[in-house]
């Protein structure tokens, strides 16, 4: 499915995500001149209210196997992309903290943009990861739990 010269890494990580070292991991091949990075950070506002913290929880075994599947799909779909990495955080986070990092590297920009977008959208919709949002008022809720439907069958 994927070429021998491609690489990918997906992880759920409890410790802080180091964006700097991840972006260096993408830069090992000097033939890959188009690098696109998406950083998803915790917002300080949601639903018009001030956010105190978010708690991310994951079903790690399934999230990691499905996450790797998403990266392999991106490499197959965007054949010029040679390296794609996604790290998703877990545990308690405050506004400004890095919750998810996606990077794609390709010889040229177009497929790197597309692969990065493909990965973040799939990660948001398909991985068994949840977040509980606590507002400064003290109210707390599981995001999406009341409003959305199941993970679509593939």
């Amino acid at each position, binding site marked *: 499915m994927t070429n021998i010269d491609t690489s990918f890494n997906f992880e759920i990580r409890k410790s802080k995500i180091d964006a700097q070292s991840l972006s260096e991991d993408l830069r090992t091949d000097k033939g890959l001149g188009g690098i696109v990075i998406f950083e998803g950070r915790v917002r300080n506002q949601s639903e018009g209210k001030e956010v105190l913290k978010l708690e991310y929880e994951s*079903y790690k075994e*399934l999230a990691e196997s499905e996450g790797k599947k998403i990266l392999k799909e991106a490499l197959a779909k965007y054949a010029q992309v040679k390296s794609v990495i996604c790290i998703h955080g877990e545990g308690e986070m405050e506004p400004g903290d890095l919750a998810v990092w996606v990077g794609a590297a390709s010889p040229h920009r177009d497929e790197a943009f597309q692969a990065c977008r493909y990965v*973040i959208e799939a*990660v948001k919709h398909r991985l068994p990861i949840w*977040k509980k949002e606590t507002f400064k008022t003290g109210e707390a809720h599981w995001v*999406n739990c009341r409003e*959305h*439907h199941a993970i679509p069958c593939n």
Partner: protein
Amino acid sequence: MSAQAPIKHIKVRYFALLREERGLDLEEIDTTAHTLEQLYKELANRYRFSLEANSLAVSQDDNFAAWGDSIKDGSTIVFIPPVAGG
């Protein structure tokens, strides 16, 4: 224990809202439910879960499963609330 409804010993893991509603993250249970859907209905009724089966996904032994799948003896089952990664 009749031949029609063998008892299966399984593990159920709970996450997020369902974990809070159940009050624990893992339990081992014996069930005569045949399918994953029957098991969810049994547990949702017993513990008054607020989420309908049609808003959940389900897994068996760390793979996504279908609601009509048979429950395997000794397996680990997870009912997956609506997700919110990213």
